[in-house]
């Protein structure tokens, strides 16, 4: 894992203290197919024994998705809330966060969790979470989407609190240069951390789980 250990989320987003009250809320965004749902499942599995977690999903949520999460022993149904976004996933996390706020606050009231994960519906590189909805956001890209994506930038790549580049096991198969992706990301991210990972090879998402644990601890301390 590559990261700047000195990076402090509380300094990066000073409005945090005035942001949403209650437990840490982390948004997970990124293009379709990058591995957002797989990351949510991995995080719930990795952190579920030490943290109480609830999840709001904005993806087109079917009983199939619920089955996926249940089969992987991730979370009971009552800790997952699906919000339908009317074909506009970016609106629901950025311009009009009200439906997601309702879902988050309802889950928090019912379960008093340590961590709220808000999974955006798959969108494009310009999608970004409002800090009225979350305290921190993870943007998930995958190697198969092309190694030029970090260079293209966009608020998800440049401003997310953690950039995850997933499916690095596929790099040789799709001709992606991981050094180029890492270098391009670092150029535009102004010290914010980037993680290169294969959730298939590392189903515990260890570096990301560790990052989240640090954020939870920081928020508690704050």
């Amino acid at each position, binding site marked *: 894992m590559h990261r700047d250990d000195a990076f402090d989320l509380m300094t990066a987003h000073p409005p945090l203290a005035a942001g949403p009250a209650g437990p840490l809320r982390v948004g997970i965004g990124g293009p379709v197919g990058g591995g957002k749902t797989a990351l949510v499942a991995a995080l719930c599995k990795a952190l579920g024994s030490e943290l109480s977690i609830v999840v709001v999903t904005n993806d087109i949520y079917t009983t199939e998705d619920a089955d996926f999460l249940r089969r992987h022993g991730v979370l009971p149904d009552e800790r997952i809330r699906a919000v339908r976004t*009317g074909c506009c996933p970016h609106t629901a996390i950025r311009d009009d966060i009200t439906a997601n706020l309702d879902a988050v606050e309802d889950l928090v009231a019912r379960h008093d969790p340590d961590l709220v994960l808000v999974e955006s519906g798959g969108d494009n590189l310009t999608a970004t979470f409002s800090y009225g909805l979350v305290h921190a956001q993870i943007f998930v890209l995958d190697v198969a989407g092309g190694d030029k994506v970090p260079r293209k930038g966009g608020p998800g790549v440049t401003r997310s609190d953690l950039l995850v580049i997933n499916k690095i096991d596929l790099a040789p198969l799709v001709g992606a240069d991981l050094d180029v992706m890492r270098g391009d990301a670092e150029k535009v991210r102004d010290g914010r951390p980037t993680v290169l990972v294969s959730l298939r090879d590392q189903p515990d998402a260890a570096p990301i789980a560790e990052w989240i644990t640090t954020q939870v601890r920081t928020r508690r301390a704050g």
Partner: protein
Amino acid sequence: MAGTLTAGLLLLADSRLPSGGHGHSGGVEALVERGLIATTADLEVFLDGRLRTSGTVPAAAAAAACGLAAHPDREPEPDWASWDEAVSARTPSAALRAASRAQGAALLRTVTLAWPGPAVEALRALGGVHHPLVLGVAAAAAGGTPLDAAGLALHHMIGGACTAAVRLLGLDPLAVAAVAARAGRRAEAVARTAGDAAAAAVADADPALLPGESSPLHDVLAQLHDSSEATLFAS
């Protein structure tokens, strides 16, 4: 009536104002799924029917809420719960009641910050009130009349359905804007009728006098939509 197009009313009419509306199709998704709306012409016929039937309910409720909120010194204080119950009674589909309350809660979040006041606080204290009541109270706070509030309710009914149709069917958005403009002109008469009924209900402090038209197909489809798999809109 003198024009009262205040900046606040323009904000309330703007679909970009955070109010949860983008997640609702006003019944369009259920109709599109069943092939009952496929073209711009279908959309126009649907809107015409909606305006003439169940459109009067939110329009009158918004107008009444605006009238009630415009006179905070009115004695006795408005019994907001009874007005909220009257909207429930005129919304036979449980799914549509839930959708209305969800959008009411969403709009109330924004209204609380943008137009705070005693009527807004009364609705907050009640918790989970119907959307038209929040819209009416906000319209009053923004300097609008009951007729403005009725017009806003219909404007959003039209706008939500039109936007959903564009997203779901890929209709020409310019042609759909023309549909919305024509529907808006037809809505003016509906707003006046709803406003008159609301004025009578407010004068008598009797929510039972609100109009109670309905669209049975709309109600049935809303229930089916609510229980179907993988829908894109909440209603």
